[in-house]
């Protein structure tokens, strides 16, 4: 579904330079790759924004200036938003809805108030309502839809800059929290922001990790209480929490070591060990960006950039870290396949913990 609209969607992005624009048109594959990556990052960003109530409101307000359809959207998002406790599956679906809406408007290059986007957003909300009866999750999907429409109306750099700004504020918040609450920092805040942390913070984090890895139910509850916005899909100590979901102690094992780790060759043999996040792709040695560094295509923990991952999928499709076949093809959206949704849930729930 996504790849269909890619060539159309990627053209406006390069329009800054006319020469590049012409080249770009020819380089269809690059455009696909780029769009693939952009999509992934957009999705990440959307999930970040979802967990930031304030940002969402800003977007809705700005959306309201665009005309009648936005009124509809605003009404939708004006609904109570306590449906944050929806199932993870529901989040995935909502997500897909948001993406679908976006691609409708993308491929048809329709204006913001086109009937298509409006209808599709209605459809999206209908879907989510039927999926989760009783939970008013429709406002979530429509609000994310309105955001992506907004993006398409403006320039694409906007959301990227926004995403950067978001992560920057998160880092600040994170540091601030470390200073103020250094006695008992909630473990969740240590999950993300691994790239720019000093050594002392690392040790700090390790301590809290060992503390939280004990199966003490009290610690889990404390985390929940700390969160101002309750965005937990499942509580860590939930009895009916699916086994397939990664647990907290697993999550902490991912972004542990922010040090530059060019090769990460140790992962070839020791797959099950804690694999630090490299700052550059071990395959092409290009720097990993935000999307790449939260991209975990294989359960063995071997990370690589999206370009190389796509490239490997075109060939034998085996993880360079453990030689196992990649279980999923996340090009078409991670929500569809098991392995992909699992890994992306990890990334997403990491960001939730930090940002809530």
């Amino acid at each position, binding site marked *: 579904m996504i790849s269909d609209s890619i060539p159309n969607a990627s053209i406006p992005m390069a329009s800054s330079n006319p020469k*590049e624009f012409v*080249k*770009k048109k*020819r*380089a269809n*594959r*690059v455009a696909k*790759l*780029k769009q693939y*990556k952009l999509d992934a*990052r957009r999705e990440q960003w959307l999930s970040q924004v979802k967990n930031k109530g304030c940002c969402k409101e800003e977007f809705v307000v700005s959306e309201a200036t665009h005309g009648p359809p936005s009124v509809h959207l605003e009404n939708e998002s004006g609904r109570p938003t306590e449906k944050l406790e929806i199932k993870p599956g529901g989040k995935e679906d909502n997500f897909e809805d948001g993406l679908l809406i976006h691609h409708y408007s993308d491929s048809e290059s329709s204006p913001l108030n086109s009937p298509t986007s409006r209808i599709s957003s209605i459809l999206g909300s209908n879907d989510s309502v039927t999926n989760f009866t009783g939970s008013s999750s429709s406002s979530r999907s429509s609000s994310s839809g309105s955001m992506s429409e907004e993006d398409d109306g403006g320039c694409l750099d906007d959301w*990227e800059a926004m995403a950067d700004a978001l992560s920057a504020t998160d880092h600040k918040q994170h540091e601030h929290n470390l200073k103020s609450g250094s006695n008992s920092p909630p473990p969740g805040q240590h999950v993300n922001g691994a790239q720019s942390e000093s050594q002392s913070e690392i040790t700090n984090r390790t301590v809290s990790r060992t503390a939280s890895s004990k199966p003490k139910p009290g610690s889990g509850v404390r985390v929940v209480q700390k969160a101002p916005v309750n965005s937990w899909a499942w509580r860590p100590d939930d009895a009916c929490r699916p086994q397939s979901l990664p647990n907290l102690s697993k999550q902490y094992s991912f972004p542990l070591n922010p040090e530059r780790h*060019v*090769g*990460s*060759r140790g*992962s*070839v043999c020791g797959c099950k060990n804690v694999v630090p996040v490299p700052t550059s792709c*071990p*395959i*092409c*040695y*290009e*720097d990993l*960006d*935000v*999307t790449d560094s939260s991209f975990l295509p294989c359960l063995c923990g*071997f990370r690589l*950039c999206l*370009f*190389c991952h796509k*490239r*490997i999928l*075109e*060939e034998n499709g*085996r993880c*360079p*870290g453990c*030689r196992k076949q990649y279980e999923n093809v996340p090009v078409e959206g991670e929500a569809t396949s098991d392995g992909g949704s699992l890994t992306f849930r990890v990334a997403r729930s990491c960001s939730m913990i930090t940002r809530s």
Partner: protein
Amino acid sequence: MATINNNHHQDNSTNTAAAGPGVTPSKKPLPTVKTVDTHSVLKRLQSELMALMMSGDSGISAFPEEDNIFQWKGTITGSKDTVFEGTEYKLSLSFPSDYPFKPPKVKFETSCFHPNFDMHGNICLDILQDKWSSAYDVRTILLSIQSLLGEPNTSSPLNTQAASLWGNQEEYRKMVEKLYKPSG
């Protein structure tokens, strides 16, 4: 992110620009898809060279030939307490254009009397063939060959004479010394 995109973008546009719109349709579509932009291979090889030089691994070294970074010369010295102690072997590494997704071709230039190397310098090592992973690099290749020197797999030998002699380490050592011809 911007840099990555730019790199990939530029490389591909040069590739496709050469193949431009006026090019005959006889141009096979498959290689176009498979072609890796040489820039990323260059970047990878340059980074590997840097990492290799900074790593300071003892007993292995490698450096590109004059002006071709796709063609390297490497050296491996025999590890201590093996029959190859004190010997040094030159190798040639030839990187394909789709490296690291395909392994480099590695051959001994100094002949080495070893169960898993033949006298033409061919190496029987799984990670250089079907067990290759793009996570491997020159350093891991050279280290693997170095450890293979001291721990040969005598069950599937390329050099049967060496394999049968391996059990007698004293005789083997003599044979190694006898056949060792360090190249200048």
